[in-house]
């Protein structure tokens, strides 16, 4: 823990640095690292220059590629945003092999002493908390005034309700709400802070640290301030402005919304789609449009809060089944259909099953083939929330349906967000036109919520089009700046204007002014991103497993939870990762977001990471794991050494999926 003295010394250092920066004008000559980065993009200068270049923490090893690029390699991205990785062997495809079994969620148990010590830790924390409250209320009543009734007002937050926050979460506040600046890409710049009053407040020290970012939702690495997509977004702001001024149904619809909706429908393979300006609101405002009183929603027990919100808004009855467990689902279905509505036994008007494609805390992938089989028999409607899986899984990045090679048209509603894979914000629902039109009119967002803003919309269109690739009709080959060569990788030459799922997007779908650079328009870079993400996900997942850690989830999933168990290890893990030579920032989560015992670290892999970045993370985990005793997955004899894992990464990734 940073003490007051270390804080003061940090402040004085920062002051000194700031003074020198003011007295001597920053040198315009490029440092070696700068020239590396700028050698990669022809017209744009590196983003590094936007930060004070005397802050060497920002330059560090993270800014320079592990292997300097050779003369024929041209990278169009900035290394700090999207890592340079030219080696074709560090690629993988995320696809289901037909015939392999699909398991539900598997709980892996640690030794008993770990479970016991976890419970004891919580017990100690709770007892200490109550003692502090007891004494505090008597000796320092002023600090508790806002928790007690005063002046005829009941407290906003009673001391009982806020106990967990005050006595447990406050202890590790340094892990949460860390302010950042710049792009949340491969690396991220932290605005350093300290707390001088036991986490009651946090003070910015004024310094910045560049850290390896394995925490942001940036699966395909489209969080970029430079590059083709950002150029197109800039153009859109110049052409259209920022806001579309109002709700979709009340004068806030732009032609770009029509384009975006058509493109999303093509991307996921449905007739139509509808956009929403916020991911959370996509669920919470659209679900009430399709279910209501007399309907039943069957929901996976680990579904996201936004789904619960939406279902509660709708007034539909809700039942839950065990996470990703087809047996539990089937027995529930048999019960609810045979029993009908509670008390009256009337048949349900309709039953909607809501599941997620990838679960954000577990990394498990939905057993879609199992659900499709049940769907045939039990006639329920299916709503798949692809918030995390769209763009992230499947050989074409089209989500879980693509991964399992299931016709997306056979799923009634596909929902997803643009935050995670497309570097944008907001969400969509996609399905048959009749259903989407109903949601357009009856979803709360239509008349009430602001429409998606222009830059966000353009980012969605540009990134999605570059994942799909743009098909150019042969006649306009010579004059179009959109694509230099035909996209033949999917087995058909796109000579006609029609869209074939999951192929490239016809050029007429995109707005005429939008010109993507050739590497994006050809879909080449999009495919590389998908394959890099798959490689990185598999590698981190299996690397951690082989090191002996307990991880959850599917190896295809870019979400890799590593289970820590003891709550005390949470903050230590976070801090030890952040304080390394190459700082790594992590997301640690505990109860109530997870079950009480399975406190975890959640890594979010990105296509922007290079193999060396994953090596770096594995090494860090290996060292910390030994220090903190968190390797409980494999007996010592079966573990691999870290060097062996790094060396045999490709072999490890290519092992068949057996989860």
């Amino acid at each position: 823990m940073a003490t007051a003295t270390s804080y003061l010394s940090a402040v004085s250092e920062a002051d000194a640095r700031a003074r020198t920066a003011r007295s001597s004008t920053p040198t315009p000559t490029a440092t070696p690292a700068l020239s590396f980065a700028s050698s990669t993009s022809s017209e744009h200068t590196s983003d590094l220059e936007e930060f004070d270049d005397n802050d060497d923490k920002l330059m560090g090893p993270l800014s320079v590629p592990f292997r300097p690029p050779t003369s024929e390699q041209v990278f169009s991205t900035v290394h700090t945003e999207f890592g340079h990785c030219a080696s074709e062997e560090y690629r993988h495809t995320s696809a289901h092999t037909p015939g392999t079994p699909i398991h539900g969620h598997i709980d892996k148990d640690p030794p008993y002493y770990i479970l016991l010590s976890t419970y004891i830790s919580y017990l100690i924390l709770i007892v200490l908390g109550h003692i502090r409250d007891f004494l505090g209320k008597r000796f320092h009543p002023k600090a508790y005034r806002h928790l007690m009734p005063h002046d005829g007002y009941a407290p906003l937050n009673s001391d009982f309700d806020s106990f967990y926050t005050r006595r447990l979460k406050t202890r590790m506040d340094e892990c949460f709400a860390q302010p950042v600046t710049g792009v949340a890409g491969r690396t991220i710049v932290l605005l350093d802070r300290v707390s001088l009053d036991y986490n009651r407040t946090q003070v910015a020290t004024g310094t910045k640290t560049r850290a390896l970012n394995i925490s942001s939702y940036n699966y395909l690495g489209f969080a970029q301030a430079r590059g083709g997509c950002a150029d197109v977004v800039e153009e859109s702001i110049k052409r259209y402005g920022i806001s579309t001024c109002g709700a979709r149904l009340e004068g806030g619809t732009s032609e770009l919304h029509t384009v975006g909706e058509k493109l999303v429908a093509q991307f996921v393979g449905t007739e139509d789609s509808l956009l929403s300006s916020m991911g959370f609101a996509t669920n919470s405002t659209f679900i009430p449009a399709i279910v209501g009183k007399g309907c039943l929603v069957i929901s996976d027990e680990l579904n996201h809060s936004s789904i619960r919100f939406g279902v509660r808004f709708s007034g539909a009855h809700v039942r839950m089944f065990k996470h990703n467990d087809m047996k539990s689902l089937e027995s529930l279905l048999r019960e609810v259909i045979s029993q009908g509505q509670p008390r009256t036994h009337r048949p349900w008007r309709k039953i909607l099953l809501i599941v997620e494609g990838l679960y954000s805390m577990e990394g498990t992938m939905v057993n879609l083939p199992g659900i499709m089989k049940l769907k045939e028999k039990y006639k329920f409607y299916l709503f798949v929330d692809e918030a995390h899986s769209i763009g992230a899984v499947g050989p074409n990045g089209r989500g879980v349906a693509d991964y399992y090679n299931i016709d997306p048209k056979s799923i009634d509603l596909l929902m997803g967000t643009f935050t995670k894979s497309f570097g944008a914000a907001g969400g969509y629902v996609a399905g048959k036109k009749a259903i989407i039109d109903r949601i357009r009119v009856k979803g709360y967002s239509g008349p009430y919520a602001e429409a998606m803003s222009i830059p966000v919309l353009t980012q969605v269109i540009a990134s999605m089009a570059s994942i799909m690739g743009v098909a150019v009709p042969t006649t306009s080959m010579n004059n179009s700046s959109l694509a230099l060569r035909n996209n033949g990788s999917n087995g058909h030459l796109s000579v006609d204007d029609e869209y074939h799922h999951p192929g490239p997007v016809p050029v007429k779908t995109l707005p005429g002014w939008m010109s993507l650079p050739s590497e994006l328009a050809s879909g080449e870079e999009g495919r590389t991103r998908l394959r890099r993400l798959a490689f990185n996900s598999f590698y981190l997942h299996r690397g951690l497993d082989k090191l002996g850690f307990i991880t959850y989830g599917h190896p295809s999933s870019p979400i890799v939870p590593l289970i820590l168990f003891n709550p005390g290890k949470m903050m230590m893990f976070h801090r030890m990762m952040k304080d390394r030579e190459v700082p790594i920032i992590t997301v640690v989560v505990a109860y109530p977001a997870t079950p009480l015992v399975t406190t975890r670290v959640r890594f979010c892999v990105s296509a922007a990471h290079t193999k060396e970045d994953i090596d770096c993370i594995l090494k860090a985990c290996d060292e910390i794991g030994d220090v903190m005793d968190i390797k409980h997955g494999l007996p010592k004899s079966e573990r691999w050494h870290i060097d062996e894992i790094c060396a045999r990464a490709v072999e490890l990734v290519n092992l068949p999926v057996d989860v």
Partner: protein
Amino acid sequence: MDSSPLEPALAYIAHALSTLERGFYKLPGSAIIERYVRSSHQNDPGRTFLELVLFAFVIRTLLQSRTRADKDAKHFINFSEKEIDELVDEWTPEPLAPPLHEQEASDLAALPIVAGPNGPRPKLVSTGKSAYNLASLNFTGLSGNEHIKQRAIETLRKYGVGSCGPAGFYGTVDVHMDLEKDIADFLGTEASILYSQGFSTISSVIPAFCKRGDIIVADRGVTLAIQKGIEISRSTVRWFDHNDLQSLEDVLLSVEKERKKKRGPLTRRFIVTEGIFERDGAMVDLPKLIELKQKYKYRLILDETFSFGTVGRTGRGLTELYNVPASKIDMLVGSVAIGLCAGGGFCAGSHTVVDHQRINGPAFVFSASMPPLLAVSGSEGINVLRSTPSILDALHENVRAARSILDRLENITIPSHPASPIIHIQLRNSASALSVPVAKPGSHKPSNPTSAMPRDPPQFDILTEEKILQDIVEEALAQGVMITKAKRVRGMEITEARPSIRLAMTSALSKKETEKAVGVVKAAIVKVLARRR
């Protein structure tokens, strides 16, 4: 002593009991049990019996299965597997979404789509021509501001588009903190918190504070977002008549009486209402409201979605208009999307109020933070409003100009406040094709506060009125003025709002242009209503 045949048996029993007693006292902890039994007995066998029943109940509860499935419920019917299969086969669900009916489909088809930038005179896709825009929300004309666009591009070049994470996990970008500070400074509150969508703000703020058992006193005419927030909070709701502070006071009094009668503990109590009502543009009397809230010790959640950035000398909203310190409002909710033409919403208040939401506001915790460039656009919007009060003057001038044209029109009612930048136009009952009995005026019995329905609900025929209004909208568009009906999700709100046309004034049109555009709307109303007769 006479010998009795029972004597040896009694002696044996006495001996056995004393052995048992001695044995019992040898057990560790027996003294505690003895003391417990003694103190619970207190020479009253009834008490011991009660203890025993309790003990038996505990045992029974412990032995019972933890997760009692519905199978044990009273109404559960046991079916054989075969019967279940048959029932499954027989069950036919309704279609997932009923197809749109004629009116809905034609309304959707008639939706104007803007080609190019939206603003005071956007080009429409359908006609290919530009039209005066009285539909989109661009009150202070920030939409086309070149400086804001430039700053947004700069932000894009430094931060990219998305923030890629919830605020708790590396989604708190410095520009978010700047905008939060800017909003708090602008309004004069201690702090503020950003949400990534305007609509989701209030429906998340309410459940963050109001829990089961708390009391919410709300206006009957609140917008859907507030209705949903109240619904999800599970608090006890009492309704007062729309924008009627006398009715509010009555309700507050009755709640107080109820509490005294029940002698319940002190619970959190909230008044929830809007500054300018989304449903009809009415404006609340803020000083009176604050007086009431302080008198009865309620906290005030005020939704300023349509008043922030539109009223007051520099657009600070109702607090500026009425000259009331914003710190008197406990939770002041506004929209960055509407008031500042960027995106998202905010809740301003004290540090305690704001920090509480950072952990308990569902739409804040579980959602990615807003894109940085929208936050910067919001900050720049505030700068523009601060530095150029003439924008607000122009807006208010246009509102007055519009009202002076519309107020003279017969056959329509305008429930909106004269200063409101949104103007709702409703049909008078006589214009409606279907004549429905008008409620008797003068019945002064108060409405039932537990029901959202007022005592004498206004009568109107939604379908017919919607049809007429849509004709007016289309007629106006044909004459080059884009307006819109106030769209609703019919059948999903607690009470149905009367159909209306919602005009949104903007400072981006000059007074002349505004007069011309509103004149066209007036002509369209006259024409369509004449045709109906």
